[in-house]
């Protein structure tokens, strides 16, 4: 028994591997922090791209008289802008053109939304507390229609 206790004391006094233990304690937290920074950056960048795509699309649409041309122009412009957004799944880009052909006249309002799925580097906690590798971001703008 005495020998056993001496053996343990010697082992505790031995400082070999101390740095490894320190590293094991700190590294996961550092990696977690870096992960949060990268993921937040990805989401914020995608959200900014969505907002810009919504604004540019709506701006182009509100100066066109024909409803269908306006709608198609807005969607085309938004998709063109979203091509530059890193991490955005291009097949998931959706648009919501909140105006009908009957209401397409000055000074009515157009509510235009661009939605896209972002493939994040690290999983994000969703609204139901479930981890997911993809997050949907959106950008919306309300503008006045400028043509009759």
């Amino acid at each position: 028994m005495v020998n056993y206790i001496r053996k343990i004391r010697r082992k505790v006094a031995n400082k070999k591997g101390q740095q490894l233990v320190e590293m094991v304690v700190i590294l996961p937290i550092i990696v977690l922090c870096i992960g949060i920074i990268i993921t937040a950056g990805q989401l914020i960048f995608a959200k900014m791209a969505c907002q810009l795509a919504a604004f540019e699309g709506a701006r182009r649409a509100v100066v066109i008289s024909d409803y269908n041309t306006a709608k198609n122009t807005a969607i085309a412009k938004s998709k063109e802008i979203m091509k530059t957004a890193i991490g955005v799944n291009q097949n998931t880009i959706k648009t919501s053109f909140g105006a009908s052909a009957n209401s397409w006249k000055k000074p009515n309002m157009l509510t235009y939304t661009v939605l896209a799925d972002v493939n994040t580097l690290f999983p994000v906690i969703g609204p139901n507390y479930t981890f997911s590798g993809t997050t949907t971001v959106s950008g919306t703008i309300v503008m006045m229609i400028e043509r009759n």
Partner: protein
Amino acid sequence: MNKAVLILKNKKGDTLVLSVLIITIAILFTVLIVDFGMAFYTKTHMQSIADAMTIGGASYGNEAYQTLSTQKKVAIVNEKKAKPKAQEILNANKKYLPVGVEVITAEMNPTGKKIDGKVMDWQDQYYSGNFTVRLTSRYNTMFLGANKNNTFFGISLPEIRFQNEARVKVSPK
């Protein structure tokens, strides 16, 4: 005295102290980066709203008249039409603002605005066909000051405020 020196020389537990320090700094740094990233996004969002308000308001209030002396057509932005329309656009856009963002003031044709090197009051802007919107907003940071009073355990935290401005000059129809 010797006891104090001995305590300082003792290296037991220094890893714990270092670890806590590094972890705290890393977490604070992360929180700051996420919060400032969101604030940066909010600023660009507010700029797009200011642009939409200016363009919509100026387009709705765009009127032209002929001067008696020169018979020249001059464009003005009718404030009675432009201001309510811009406010309507702002109200419609408020629904889509990110969480924690508040619009504090929305000034239209603010006095003292410098345009083409000349300081203009609202009348100068009116008659020169200019329409300016200045939005002042507040962002209650997500992690640092998420509650309504912007305090964290009773300690007041600074909020992030920013100003966005947009101007349109109309020409005669």
